[in-house]
């Protein structure tokens, strides 16, 4: 694994994805080329009021331009500040951090389950899989949100040629209801195939994906979130309980864990 570094980067591009979602492209980050899907960067906010960094999954990288993209939703104090940044502003980045997803082998079908703002690392995963030669038609991307407005970057996902399955709580786009319904239906229909599950999203969704994996005996990985004071494994503040007992640090033992390992609370 590459050593994490701490570097000052500039906002080279900012996109308003509507409904409080933003994309920021930060550069130059010397480690951009080594960042793998599932890994995150820890960002220091340009504010004296907020002391701790905030973690953001990497949504894409451009190795040549040493660019790192993050996509976030304005949620609280930290993301509010990030949402107000403009092209040319500087940001202190620590990374790459965390254990990445492991790529499925090319014969396996990837069933990806993204909930809300959990989609950026999964979009990165799908993109990298295709880059490595995975057939996009073998990537089933389930993407759920509260409403149509909460599903962002749809044209980008469509362009990748993957099989996109949308769902919304209110039925304003795709299937009505939680994303987990269509996922289970899909799994039931394809039980004979070799499948790998991947998930990132709210805890309730992660717990449901974990249960599906165990119920149908399908292996896979989940990317988990936690409050992360340090992000590098030294504070023990980000732990989650393990089913086998004890705790694991989300920042460096994760954030990607195998299905069935973490005792997901919600």
């Amino acid at each position, binding site marked *: 694994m590459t*050593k*994490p*570094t*701490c570097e000052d980067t500039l906002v080279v591009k900012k996109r308003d994805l509507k409904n409080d979602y933003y994309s920021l492209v930060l550069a130059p980050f010397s480690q951009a080329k080594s960042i793998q899907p599932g890994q995150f960067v820890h960002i*220091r906010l340009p504010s004296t*009021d*907020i*002391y*701790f*960094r905030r973690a953001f999954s990497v949504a894409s990288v451009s190795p040549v331009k040493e660019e790192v993209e993050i996509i976030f939703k304005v949620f609280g104090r930290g993301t509010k500040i990030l949402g107000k940044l403009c092209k040319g502003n500087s940001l202190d980045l*620590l990374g790459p951090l965390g254990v990445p997803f492991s790529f499925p082998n090319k014969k396996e079908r990837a069933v990806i389950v993204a909930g809300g703002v959990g989609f950026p690392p999964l979009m990165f995963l799908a993109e990298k899989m295709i880059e490595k030669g995975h057939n996009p038609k073998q990537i089933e991307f389930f993407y759920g949100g509260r409403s149509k407005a909460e599903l962002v970057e749809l044209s980008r996902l469509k362009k990748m040629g993957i099989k996109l399955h949308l769902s919304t709580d209110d039925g304003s786009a795709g299937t009505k209801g939680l994303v987990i319904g269509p996922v289970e239906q899909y799994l039931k229909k394809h039980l004979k195939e070799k499948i790998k599950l991947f998930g990132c999203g709210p805890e309730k969704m992660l717990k449901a994906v974990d249960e599906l994996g165990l119920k149908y005996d399908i292996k896979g990985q989940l990317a988990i979130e*936690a*409050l992360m*004071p*340090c*992000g*590098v*494994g*030294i*504070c*023990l*503040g*980000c*732990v*989650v*309980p393990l089913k086998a*007992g*004890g*705790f694991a640090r989300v920042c*460096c033992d994760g954030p990607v864990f195998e299905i069935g390992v973490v005792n997901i609370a919600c």
Partner: protein
Amino acid sequence: MPADLKCKIAGVEFANPIMTASGCAGYGEELAQIYPLSNLGALVTKSISLKVRPGHPPPRTVETPGGLLNAIGLANVGIDRFLKEKVPFLEKQKTKVIVNVAGSTIDEYVEVCSRLNDCSCADMIELNISCPNVNEGGIEFGTSPKLTEKTVAAARKVFKRPIIAKLAPNVTSIAEIANAAEQGGADALSIINSVIGTAVDIDSWQPLLTNINGGLTGPAIKPIALAMVSSVYRKCNLPIIGIGGITDYKDVIEYLLYGATAVQVGTALFVDPSAPLKIVKDLKKYLKEKKLKSVTELIGKVRR
């Protein structure tokens, strides 16, 4: 000539006065991925107890203005695994190692200290008689002068190298506790451990930490810690390691002026794991600007 950053505590020489604080750098492995530990004056380990401690269930931390509330619960690998799994790594590092020791009974402190006496990698030990995060022991030792003296004296009998007593701020008179630690045979004092605090969620009306109370650390506690260092410096003869809210070289200088010989950086490592490197660099520059030959010339020089 470059300014001299070396300092000495109880006969042990440190390359510079900047150490990591216990519980804020694990056992050194993670920081060593980022920079060589030889940049540090010393690495202070997470508290080691007799048995493995898994720690408290999450949530363990809450961000507060200028600080962090934590209730980690002394999660650590225990002395057996520490000696087996962590010491081989620590032995290879070119820095001084201070092993922090915690216990819930005096017997536990004694057992851990005597095991460490046989481990040459522990240049010093730091007795944590002040952790607010365990319900038994911990802070009780550090809030009673009698128990402080007894605990230090018991460790003194079995550990032959220098002993540091780490004091709690949640006491009526920290100087009294400091003197008790000196009576017990301590060689130096670490001042302070975290300050007891809590926080509540105003929607659910539930405490934000599973453990309810936690320890407050970070810039928010610096003025409290400085006042305690100053008070102990005037009333007790032992060398002091100042701790609390140190983020940059300016904080370090304040501590030295109030009487600390060295300092530990804790919470600031979470924001910037390389903070000690920057502090060392800036400290050198400051000494040069002030035309001082050695960092020790600052100790206790506050003009009252």
